[in-house]
C-alpha cells in the first residue's frame, strides 16, 4: 500500500524537532560548564589570599595575564553557545504551547448530522431528509461570504451522506467502527516535522549535498580532531614532542640551571610565542641579559654559554625570557614583558612533567633540582645553587639582601639567610640591619607582615607504623605518619602553644569499627601562595618522599599534600590570616622491603611554592622478623556447633568436635590482643571469667 508523507505545511510540528536537536547539544554543554571546578587546576576557591600592599613593577601586566587566564577559564564561547541553545529551546516550547494545533478531526457522524448521540434511527432518517433539502449541491448556492466554492459544497454534502451511511448502512457502519472512517481502511500516513520545501523538486540535490557534507566531511573532521588531539598529549597533558625533548635533556647530575634548559625545549612555548613573535625582540632581549648586573649574578656562565650556543631562535627566545623572568630583569618593552610573564605558568607545568620523568629514573638529585626550580619559578628567584630566600619578601632587592647578609653573616655558614632565620633575629637588630641596608622602616613592616603569614611547616614527629599492628613486618603495608604544625616565621615563641602528647599519637580505629575506618579525614586548604610575580593563583603543595642517601636514589616516591585534616590558618579579621597551631597529620603508605632489619632513610619535605621552607631529616624504619606478627585468632569466628542442634548431630556423626558445655568458651581475639600487653602484670584469672562453671551440666544453658 502506498504511504503518505505529510510534511509540515502548516509549520506546527517543527518546534518539536528543533527542540530535540538543540537539547541534545545544549544539555551536555551546560553540564560541562557547571562541572568546571574539578577540571581546572587553579586554587580552591575556599583558600584565602595573603594580602599585602606591595605591588611589583609591571603589576599591571601581571594582572592583565591573570585576568586573561580567568577569562579563558570562564570559557566564554561555551557559555555563549549554551545560553543561545537554552534561548532557542525556550522559544520552541513557547511556540508549541501557543500554536493552535489543528486537531486531527475525529470523524464524528453524529456531529455532522447534528443529532444527539442517543438519537433513534427514525430521528436520524428525518434529520437526513431535512438536511438533504438544504444542503444538497443542486439546491445550494455557494455563498462567497463564507468562502464556499462549488467544491466545498460538494464536499460537505459527501460528508453528510457518509455520516448517514455510517449510522445506517451495515458495511459503512462496520468500517466506521473498525477504522474510524467510513471509507474503509486508509493507508498509513506519516507526519514529518520538516518544511515541505525539502522534498520540493529542485531542492533535492541541495539536501543531498548538505547531508553528504555532514556525514562525509564534518563528522570525520570532528572525530579526527578529537583523536589526534588526544594522541598528541601524554598523560600529564604535555605534548608528545615536548616530552621527547625533555627526556633527551635528562642527565644524572642536574642543577636547576640545567632543568631550565631542559624545560625551554618544550613545544608549548613556541605556540605561545606564535609565529612572527617567535623571534622578535630577541636581539634586545639578549643584549639586556648580557648587560644587566642582576642577570650577571643570577645566571651561571655555563648556562649563558648554553644559551649562546642554541641555534633555534624560538627556543633561544624562550630560554632568554625564562632567565629574564627568574632574575626579575626589567625589559623595557611592554610586549616582551607581557610575553615574559605569560611563559611562567607554562614553565611550571612543564617542570611538573619533568619531575615525573626524573622520578622514573629514581635519582634524587635531578628530582630535587626540579622541585627547587618550581619554587624559583613561582617566586621569580634565580635558581642558583644557593638561592636567596629573602627575595620572596616584598621590597627586598638583591643589593639590600647582600648588605643584610653581610652584616648578619654567621661564620662557617655557606647558606644564605632564610626568612625564618631573618625573622628569628631580635626586632631591634632586624630594624637596624634593614635600615642600614637601605630598607625604610615602613617597607620592613610590610615585609614582616607578609612573613608572619607564610605557611612554614615544622615537623614535630615522623614515624612508621602498620595500621593495627605493633611491629612492622617485611612486605607489609607501612604507613609513614608525619605530625607537623604550621608556624610562620617570626612567631614569638611565647605564642606557640605546647604540643600535647595525644596529638602526636596516631590512633587507629578499632578492628570492627567499619564506620570509623571508612570515615574520610577533613580537608582544609592552606592560604594561596604569596607570589606577586606569578600571574596565577597557586596553592602551595608539600611533597614528601624518602631517599636512600648512600645510593642517591629515591626509596619511596613523593606523596603530595595540598589540603590538611585540620584548619591551619584562619581569618584574623584584618584581612590576613593567622595560624591556629593545630597539629596536622600527613600520611603516606607504601610497601615495606622484604627483609628484616634497620633501614635508614633521608626524609625530604619540599614545599613547592616557597624557597627555603624545606625540611630534611633522617628517619629510621625498624622491620621486625615475620614471626613477631600478631597471630589472628581465627578459631573463634565460628564456634563449634552445639550438641543439641542438628549441626551438632551431624558433626557427631562425622566425628567432629562439638561444643562442650564444660570447656571454657574461647575468648575473643580483641581481648586476647589486649591480654598480650597486659598479661605481663595481670594474673591469668581474667581469662577465666568467660569460663562456664564447671559444675554446671545443664545443657540448656547454652544458647540455641
Amino acid at each position, binding site marked *: 500500500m502506498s504511504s503518505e508523507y505529510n510534511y509540515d505545511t502548516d509549520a506546527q510540528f517543527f518546534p518539536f524537532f528543533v527542540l530535540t536537536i538543540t537539547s541534545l547539544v545544549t544539555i551536555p554543554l551546560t553540564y560541562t560548564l557547571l562541572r568546571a571546578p574539578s577540571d581546572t587546576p587553579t586554587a580552591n576557591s575556599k583558600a584565602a589570599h595573603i594580602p599585602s600592599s606591595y605591588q611589583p613593577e609591571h603589576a599591571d601586566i601581571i594582572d592583565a595575564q591573570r585576568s586573561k587566564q580567568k577569562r579563558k577559564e570562564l570559557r566564554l564561547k561555551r557559555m555563549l553557545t549554551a545560553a543561545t541553545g537554552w534561548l532557542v529551546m525556550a522559544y520552541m516550547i513557547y511556540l508549541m504551547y501557543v500554536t493552535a494545533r489543528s486537531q486531527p478531526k475525529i470523524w464524528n457522524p453524529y456531529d455532522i448530522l447534528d443529532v444527539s448521540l442517543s438519537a433513534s434511527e427514525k430521528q436520524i432518517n428525518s434529520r437526513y431528509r431535512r438536511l438533504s433539502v438544504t444542503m444538497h449541491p443542486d439546491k445550494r448556492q455557494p455563498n462567497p461570504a463564507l468562502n464556499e466554492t462549488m467544491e466545498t459544497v460538494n464536499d460537505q454534502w459527501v460528508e453528510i451522506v457518509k455520516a448517514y451511511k455510517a449510522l445506517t448502512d451495515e458495511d459503512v457502519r462496520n468500517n466506521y467502527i473498525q477504522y474510524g472512517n467510513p471509507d474503509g481502511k486508509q493507508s498509513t500516513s506519516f507526519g514529518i516535522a520538516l518544511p515541505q520545501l525539502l522534498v520540493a523538486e529542485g531542492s533535492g540535490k541541495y539536501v543531498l549535498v548538505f547531508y553528504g557534507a555532514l556525514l562525509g566531511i564534518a563528522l570525520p573532521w570532528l572525530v579526527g580532531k578529537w583523536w589526534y588531539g588526544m594522541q598528541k598529549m601524554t598523560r600529564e597533558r604535555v605534548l608528545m614532542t615536548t616530552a621527547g625533548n625533555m627526556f633527551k635533556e635528562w642527565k644524572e647530575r642536574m642543577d636547576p640551571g640545567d632543568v631550565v634548559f631542559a624545560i625551554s625545549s618544550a613545544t608549548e612555548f613556541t605556540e605561545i610565542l606564535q609565529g612572527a613573535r617567535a623571534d622578535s625582540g630577541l636581539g634586545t632581549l639578549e643584549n639586556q641579559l648580557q648587560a644587566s648586573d642582576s642577570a650577571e649574578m643570577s645566571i651561571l656562565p655555563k648556562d649563558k654559554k648554553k644559551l*649562546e*650556543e642554541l*641555534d*633555534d631562535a624560538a627556543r633561544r627566545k624562550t630560554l632568554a625570557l625564562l632567565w629574564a623572568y627568574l632574575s626579575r630583569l626589567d625589559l623595557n618593552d611592554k610586549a616582551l614583558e607581557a610575553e615574559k610573564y605569560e611563559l611562567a605558568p607554562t614553565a611550571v607545568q612543564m617542570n611538573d612533567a619533568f619531575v615525573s620523568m626524573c622520578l622514573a629514573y629514581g635519582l634524587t638529585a635531578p628530582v630535587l633540582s626540579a622541585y627547587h626550580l618550581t619554587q624559583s619559578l613561582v617566586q621569580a628567584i634565580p635558581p642558583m645553587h644557593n638561592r636567596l630566600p629573602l627575595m620572596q619578601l616584598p621590597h627586598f632587592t638583591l643589593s639590600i639582601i647582600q648588605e643584610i647578609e653581610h652584616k648578619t653573616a*654567621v*661564620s*662557617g*655558614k*655557606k647558606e644564605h639567610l632564610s626568612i625564618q632565620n631573618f625573622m628569628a633575629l631580635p626586632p631591634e637588630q632586624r630594624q637596624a640591619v634593614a635600615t642600614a641596608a637601605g630598607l625604610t622602616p615602613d617597607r620592613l613592616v610590610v615585609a614582616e607582615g607578609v612573613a608572619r603569614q607564610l605557611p612554614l611547616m615544622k615537623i614535630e614527629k615522623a614515624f612508621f607504623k602498620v595500621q593495627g599492628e605493633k611491629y612492622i613486618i617485611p612486605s607489609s603495608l607501612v604507613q609513614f605518619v608525619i605530625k607537623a604544625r604550621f608556624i610562620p616565621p617570626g612567631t614569638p615563641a611565647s605564642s606557640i602553644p605546647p604540643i600535647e602528647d595525644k596529638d602526636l599519637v596516631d590512633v587507629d580505629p578499632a578492628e570492627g569499627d567499619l564506620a570509623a575506618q571508612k570515615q574520610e579525614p577533613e580537608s582544609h586548604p592552606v592560604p594561596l601562595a604569596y607570589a606577586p610575580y606569578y600571574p596565577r593563583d597557586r596553592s602551595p603543595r608539600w611533597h614528601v618522599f624518602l631517599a636512600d*642517601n*648512600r645510593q642517591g636514589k629515591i626509596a619511596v616516591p613523593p606523596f603530595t599534600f595540598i589540603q590538611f585534616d585540620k584548619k591551619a590558618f584562619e581569618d584574623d579579621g584584618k584581612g590576613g590570616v593567622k595560624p591556629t597551631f593545630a597539629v596536622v597529620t600527613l600520611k603516606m603508605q607504601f610497601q615495606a622491603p622484604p627483609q628484616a632489619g634497620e633501614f*635508614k632513610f633521608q626524609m625530604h619535605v619540599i614545599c613547592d611554592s616557597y624557597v627555603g621552607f624545606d625540611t630534611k631529616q633522617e628517619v629510621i624504619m625498624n622491620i621486625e622478623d615475620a614471626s613477631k606478627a600478631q597471630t589472628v585468632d581465627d578459631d573463634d569466628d565460628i564456634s563449634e556447633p552445639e550438641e543439641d542442634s542438628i549441626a551438632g548431630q551431624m558433626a557427631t556423626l562425622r566425628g567432629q568436635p562439638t561444643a562442650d558445655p564444660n570447656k571454657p568458651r574461647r575468648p575473643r581475639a580483641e581481648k586476647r590482643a589486649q591480654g598480650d600487653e597486659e598479661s605481663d602484670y595481670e594474673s591469668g584469672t581474667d581469662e577465666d571469667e568467660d569460663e562456664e562453671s564447671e559444675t554446671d551440666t545443664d545443657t540448656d544453658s547454652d544458647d540455641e
Partner: protein
Amino acid sequence: MDLETYSPLPLTIDPATKAISSSDPTLSADIDDLNKLHRLVVGLDTPNQVPAPPAPVNPKRSVQITKLRESGNAAYKKSSLPEALNLYTLAIRMASERPPWEASGLVREELSALYNNRAQVHMAQQAWPEGACDAEISVELKRVGNLKGWWRRGMCLKEMGRWEEAREWVGTGLEFERAGPEKQGVGELEALFREVCKGVEGT
C-alpha cells in the same frame, strides 16, 4: 637539531698536522675534543692504528703513573712538599689524559689515590681549602672504602671552622664506611665526628 637543512661549517684543516681549526668560536670546544682524539689515535703504535681492547691494559702509562706517584711519596716523606706537589699534579694530569678507550674504572682508582695523596700534601702545608677540594674529588671518585678521603676533608673543614658542613660530611662518611670494607678503621672517623659535634655546639 634540524635534520633537513645542511649548513656547511667554516672549517679549515692544516695539511701537515691534519688539525682542524675554525673561525667560528662556538665550535671551539667540539673541535678541540676532535683534535685531541685525532692525536691520540695517530699516536697509537698498534697495527693499523686501531685502539687496543681495554682488558689487557697497556702497561706503559700505568707504570709511568705509578713511578710518579712513588717519587711523590718519597718527596713527601723527605718533607720537600713543593716537589711532592708537582709530582702528584703531573701524575694526575697523566692519568686524566688517558685515551677514552682504556678502562675507566682503572682511571678512577688511580685518580682517587692520587688526589688523596695531594690532599695530604696540602694539609701538611696547612692549605686547608685546597686540601678540602682534593679530598672531595677523591671521595666523589670512590665513595666506599675511602676512609682517608672522608677523614681528610672532614679535618680540613674543621680546621677552616666550617662546623656544620664538617658534621654533615663526616656523618655521611660514617654512613658509607660503616657498611664498607674498612670497618675497622671507622674508629678514627667516629672520633673526628665527636670532635666536630662538640665544635658545632661551641658556636
